[in-house]
């Protein structure tokens, strides 16, 4: 009698365990359909400079079944406003955050607070943060110092190593961001040995085109205009078209407008970081962190290319410069 009971219990127990296992398996795979929610907060969200970046983000969102929310921001959004927007997104259920800070300084508290709540990925520029032992956030950006140098390098390739006769006007972009600071540094370092003079620098103001015009006409006229960011480069080109001023134009950019300007011969050489890569990989990093809360997030470097009129239409560059669709 006892034997029989034991036996039955034994089999029944096994069956129940397997049953529970398979039910939870089904639930798990059903739950897998619930996508993660990730919000994206960048400065000037509707600027065309983000187009490739968004493409990368959206492709990754599709591949990894993530619900993406790109928060609308204006050109002048500051850290307080960013902070407010971030908290709104977190309150709205965001599990991951992709963030480009407006000001890299003094962000320690904010970053440690946010990275405690969501998976945080900084894009485009690094920022101040406490030492992050657990890898709760990471940064993906280009090697901005090298990028700055590359711009200088293009100048030298085109115009020679002795630029002592040349004057350069520099559009610096948002120097509150470390990325822009490093670019400027890299450019200045690279250009130093040529003896060229930086006549003036324009920062992150509203009407760059007008400012350039002012500088060129009222202030010191330069032969070379260099922009460290996409907006700045566009502004320089607009200035050039507007006034017909025949200047050399170099800089960093990725928007289709700037690409067209290269095609029209306006821009002599442009450094193009792979923003698609940045968008895609930033979301992948957030996703990995959300999937496995224990793996630390790692920084990543965004590659860049040097594009000019000669190689713009090469097979490989075409695909990067002219996104399909």
């Amino acid at each position, binding site marked *: *009698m006892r*034997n*029989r009971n034991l*036996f*039955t219990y034994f*089999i*029944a127990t096994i*069956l*129940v365990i*397997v*049953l529970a*296992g*398979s*039910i939870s*398996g*089904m639930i798990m*795979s059903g739950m897998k359909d619930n996508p993660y929610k990730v919000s994206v907060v960048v400065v000037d969200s509707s600027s065309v400079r983000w187009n490739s970046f968004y*493409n*990368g983000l959206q*492709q990754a969102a599709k591949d990894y*079944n993530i619900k993406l929310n790109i928060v609308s921001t204006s050109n002048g959004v500051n850290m307080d406003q960013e902070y407010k927007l971030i908290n709104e997104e977190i309150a709205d259920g965001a599990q991951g955050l992709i963030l480009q800070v407006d000001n890299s300084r003094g962000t320690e508290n904010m970053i440690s607070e946010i990275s405690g709540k969501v998976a945080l990925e900084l894009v485009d520029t690094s920022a101040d943060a406490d030492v992050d032992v657990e890898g709760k956030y990471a940064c993906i950006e280009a090697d901005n110092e090298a990028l700055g140098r590359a711009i200088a390098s293009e100048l030298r390739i085109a115009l020679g190593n002795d630029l002592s006769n040349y004057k350069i006007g520099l559009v610096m972009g948002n120097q509150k961001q470390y990325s822009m600071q490093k670019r400027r540094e890299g450019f200045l370092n690279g250009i130093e040995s040529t003896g060229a003079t930086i006549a003036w620098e324009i920062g992150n103001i509203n009407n760059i085109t007008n400012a350039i015009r002012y500088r060129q006409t009222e202030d010191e006229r330069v032969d070379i205009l260099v922009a460290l960011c996409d907006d700045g480069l566009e502004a320089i080109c607009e200035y050039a078209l507007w006034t017909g001023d025949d200047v050399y134009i170099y800089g960093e950019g990725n928007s*289709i*407008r700037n*690409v*067209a300007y290269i*095609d029209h*011969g306006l821009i002599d050489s442009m450094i193009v970081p*792979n923003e*698609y*890569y940045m968008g*895609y*990989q930033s979301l992948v990093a957030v996703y990995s962190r959300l999937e496995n809360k224990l793996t630390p997030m790692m920084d990543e470097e965004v590659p860049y290319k040097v594009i000019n009129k000669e190689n713009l*239409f090469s*097979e*490989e560059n*075409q*695909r*990067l410069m*002219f*996104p*399909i*669709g």
Partner: protein
Amino acid sequence: MPRSIQVAISISFTVVSLICMLVMGVVLYQRFAIRSEQMMTENAEQVLGQTVVNLEDYLRSMRRMSDAMYYDAIKEADIKEESIDSQMNLLYEANKDNLISLALYDDEGNLFFASPVGVEKDQVDVLSQNWFKKALAKPENLHFSLPHVQNIFVDDPNFRYYWVISLSRAVELNYGGVPKRGVLLVDMNYAVIEQMLDSVNESNSQQYIYLCDSTGNIIYHPRLMQITTGLYQENNSAVPQYGDGSLIEEFDGEKRIVTVDTVSYTGWKLVSVIPMRNYHLGMSDTRFYVIMVVCITLLAMLFLNRIVANRVTMPIRKLNDSIRDIEMGKKNPDIYIGGPAEVEHLGRTLRDSMNQINQLMKDMVASQEEKRKSELDALQSQINPHFLYNTLDSIVWMIEGEKYQDAVFMITQLASLFRVSLSSGKTIIPIEDEMRHAENYMNIQKVRFKDAFTVSFDIDEAIKRLCTVKLIVQPILENAIYYGVKDMEDGEIEVKGFIGDDGDVYITVSDNGFGMNEEQVEALLTDDNSKVRKKGSGVGLINVHRRIVLRFGDKYGLKIESEPDEGTTVTIHIPAIDYTEENRLMLESGKEHQDEE
């Protein structure tokens, strides 16, 4: 200890159902999985086939347009004098959903006509562009290029760039009567192919379709941007080696089902990729479901098993309990009769057997009783006081009458008689001893009855050493005396012993006395032991008969034949059994009926 029947049934039910369910589950699942895979592959091939047809249609219509342009417009015109703008515009407008532009060049790269936009970029070098070179290199064919950004015309200063696939061909121009070579370019809107293939790739599952040319260069891929950026790998370089149809390839550590279909004329290949992992993931849901169903069914079966086993074995167990009761010695146990036919039959049979056994036991007890009684009776008769007193009286009378010889004779006979009577307690003696006993008795009686009668013994030598029950002859002789010849003058008693025709022993005692009528004969054989006569030795013929029957069986016994006034013959019929110690013991221990059946 052997297992209980219920456990056995339970276990075997369980095991059987387990095995059945598992086998069924596995078999069905496998079948389903295979079918599923087949269907997926077929589906992919179908979709592929359909898309190829659509693509071919599209490419064909483009080729037709190029033909129309060439044969209907260009060939006819003298392009030095005439303008073919209106035809070009017409063709463009009619096909503008599929086209970006049409253009006609001569072989030196001069643009003659273009639609819709005819403004070339400055510094554009048509001669170095692939479509141009290829067209002139092989003038007999139409050439489809790989997708590229159109780098000839200016569109809006609105920074507009088009991805196109260039369809180019060498043409023969008529330039003021002089034949000239040129190239007709039809830039197809790549977005058309993109949309066509995007809509096929719409579904969210991991399978997708891409398009490459005959050497494996990708024309369309849903993840083109990722491949370019190095975020994704594709095995397109292997495609030229694959023929049309499906196969399984392993790439990047993953197995996939790859189906290839070739687009005619261009040699482009449309490739469908289904990662097996995707299929497995989809299947895992089913797998879980199957496992779940199997488990629940098994649990249910376990449950039912119990009930069924219970119901089936209950009658048997009840029967078993009844038997246990019997073992325990319970008086009049209730035997369970019920359940299925076999069990009921068992119960009934058991009950009948029980009853039979009881009956037999009763019978045995009864016969033992009887034997005991008759032995007791015989024992009694061995020492009948009256016979003794009378004989002793006679002896005393003889001694008083100084007939010492007679007295000695009498005493000797008496002693011998008693010696046989006792026979050291044996019940089975040789016939010669029995006969001696009978002689002794008759001798005594003759003296007592003063030779009122004669007796003769005629015993066959053959039977003298055969077995018999002791004290069967003497009672008959006694009867013969007291009921036969006692009051006659010339009474005769004959005792014969012989082997009959049937091999049995027959001993007859005949007298010529008064005889009996039928009622008297019957009375002698009545079953009434209470009528122990006081005279004689007191053992009735019934007793003799019974003892013989008891020892030797129903076949044997006494037979009485009598005629009133004629005489009586009593026949003893017993089997012929050698008097050996073995046989004696056997007969004495009550192994009755041993030579029956």
